[in-house]
């Protein structure tokens, strides 16, 4: 136990102000404050991999590391679309996932915000459209916001999440 505690103390608190200082974009107000003002509670996200190469998943997972500390600012990933305010969809949408993606959207309560992540989710990326790929997420379900990048950085994904609920 003493090892664990000393490790925690040595590590300290790493959470960065949003966006991360390494980014060139100007510092915006804290995400947590926006959430509290607009939603008045936590934002629940359901991630759906609709056929991605798993690169975007790695960066979405990074959002939960201590640097970005997504749960700390009041955003959490939920296990069911029925609990979700927002779907974070990575693509391209494979034809084999088309039905599952539509059903996941159906299961989410209104207003069903959708953010498409990555070049593939935005426009089909290197896979494009073919017999097995529907390309962009917006070809299959309505999308409110896209974030480009292959994969997009965690702070770019965070910025897209912030802007979509501010605009909604």
């Amino acid at each position, binding site marked *: 136990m003493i*090892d664990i505690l000393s490790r925690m103390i040595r590590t300290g608190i*790493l959470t960065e102000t949003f966006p991360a200082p390494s980014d060139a974009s100007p510092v915006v107000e804290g995400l947590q404050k926006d959430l509290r003002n607009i939603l008045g509670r936590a934002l629940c996200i359901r991630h759906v991999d609709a056929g*991605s190469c798993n690169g975007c998943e790695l960066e979405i997972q990074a959002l939960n*590391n201590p640097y970005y500390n997504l749960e700390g600012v009041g955003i959490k990933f939920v296990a069911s679309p029925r609990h979700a305010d927002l779907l974070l969809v990575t693509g391209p949408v*494979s034809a084999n996932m088309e*039905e*599952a993606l539509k059903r996941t959207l159906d299961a989410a309560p209104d207003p069903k915000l959708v953010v498409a992540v990555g070049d593939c989710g935005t426009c089909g990326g*290197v896979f494009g459209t*073919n017999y*097995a790929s529907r390309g962009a997420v917006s070809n299959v379900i309505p999308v409110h916001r896209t974030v480009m990048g292959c994969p997009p950085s965690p702070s770019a994904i965070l910025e897209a999440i912030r802007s979509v609920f501010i605009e909604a």
Partner: protein
Amino acid sequence: MSDSFGQAIRELPSNLSCNCTRVGALNWRRAAEKLHAAGGRLLTLWGADDRDRDGRFRIYAAYLLHEGVAVFEHPMDQGANPIYPSLAEIFPCALHMERAVHDLLGIASMEPDHRGWLRHGAWPDTVFPLRREFDGNTQFAVQSQPYPFVQVEGDGVHEIAVGPVHAGTIEPGHFRFSVVGEKVLRLEERLGYTHKGVSKRFEEMPQMEGHHLAARLSGDSAVAFSWAYCAALEAITQTTCPPLAANLRALALEHERLANHLGDLGALGNDAGFAFGLTQFSRMKEDLLRINAAAFGTRYLFDFIRPGGVAADLPVSAPRLLLDHYPVLEEGVSALRSIYDNHAGLQDRFRDAGILTAETAAQLGAIGLAGRASSLPLDLRVDYPWPPYDRLEPKRVTQARGDVAARVQVRFDEIFESLRLCRTLVKEMTAGSIQVDCPPAEPHRLGLGLIEGWRGPVLIALESGPDGTIRRCHAHDPSWQNWPLLEYAILGNIVPDFPLINKSFNLSYSGHDG
């Protein structure tokens, strides 16, 4: 030259020693039996439509033997829907590959299981996307079809269906559990959900751009796949990558291994209820990704490796930065290892969970990391070293227990070994060229690229077309071999341990589905 079947053998261009034998149907199977008896492993299976060239379909199988890779090519003469002898009785991992070949090409094995593997109803069963006459851009409305899972009957047996959308930030696939109480009697996997038609997509790309797609077959293995692609292309064009570029490629590959192992070790702690582990390892992974951004210019090295070399040299400040960071990472991982090893609650979950015995692993053809945790020592970097691994003398890491704990230990040991390799690579870095021209390959040249990624050997078989085009490109992820292992490792375990056991293998869906 000829082999014991009296067939002509030709050398095949590759980064490993590789040859190709043309066989008929009888010897297709006999060769598999003989190679199996000699300890060979099935690496991959793929088909090609060569009716425009000589009126035939071809099926290929690549085996790994002590002396290198042996490819067998079986041209088929029986018209539009030919069949060939199945290898699944000899190499069980061939079953899914044969089903996939049928879905894409319409050439069937004699194995009776003809349920669609990649085809879930997104295209009609009379359409075969990899045939030459098929236009890849044709789209069909999805006709959802039932998939008959094997039913387990008896008192108190019920089914749990999971997926394709999973409860977490992971890829889609379907798991059908048959359970009694909490105990798993049977698991049947259904994959193919992320099939994006990459083989057909490759055929629309010039050779010089294929590495972009290769890097995106499985994002967590971007370096391994893009290197395998470039190795295949460089082999058929007789291009030699400059020594500095080879060093940088290996450095990128080891960084990819480090990042994935760090991520997995954290996730494994978390799946066993130890959130501290996830916090610490995800911090170390993020640190490494930021080092990547500073040294390679990008967090994930998707387009770093390209035909003839690499995209960029390290900046002047990078060697110091890297050499300063490795000891920090090493200290962090050592400390966490000691905490993991001494944490009774964690070890209670890891030990004896999801055991894959050495015998089962060998029978099923386990490969890569999961194989090494079950006493199967194969590591291409050690056994068939290509530059620069031929002078780095990487050490092999194995474990005997085959449980989650063993797969955790393999990851810990491989992190330390990777760090040692990284240090050597950075220290040896000298000025030099990072890129040579890679000319277009002559038409109809077949070459293989084989690289030990963090998950296991990834393979690209590349056949050139005229004027720098790709005629056929087959990509193979080790997940093909290792997905069926999970169906065995879970037997007799309880359902709540499935996420932990699944994570300890951490197989690729996208790399498998293609």
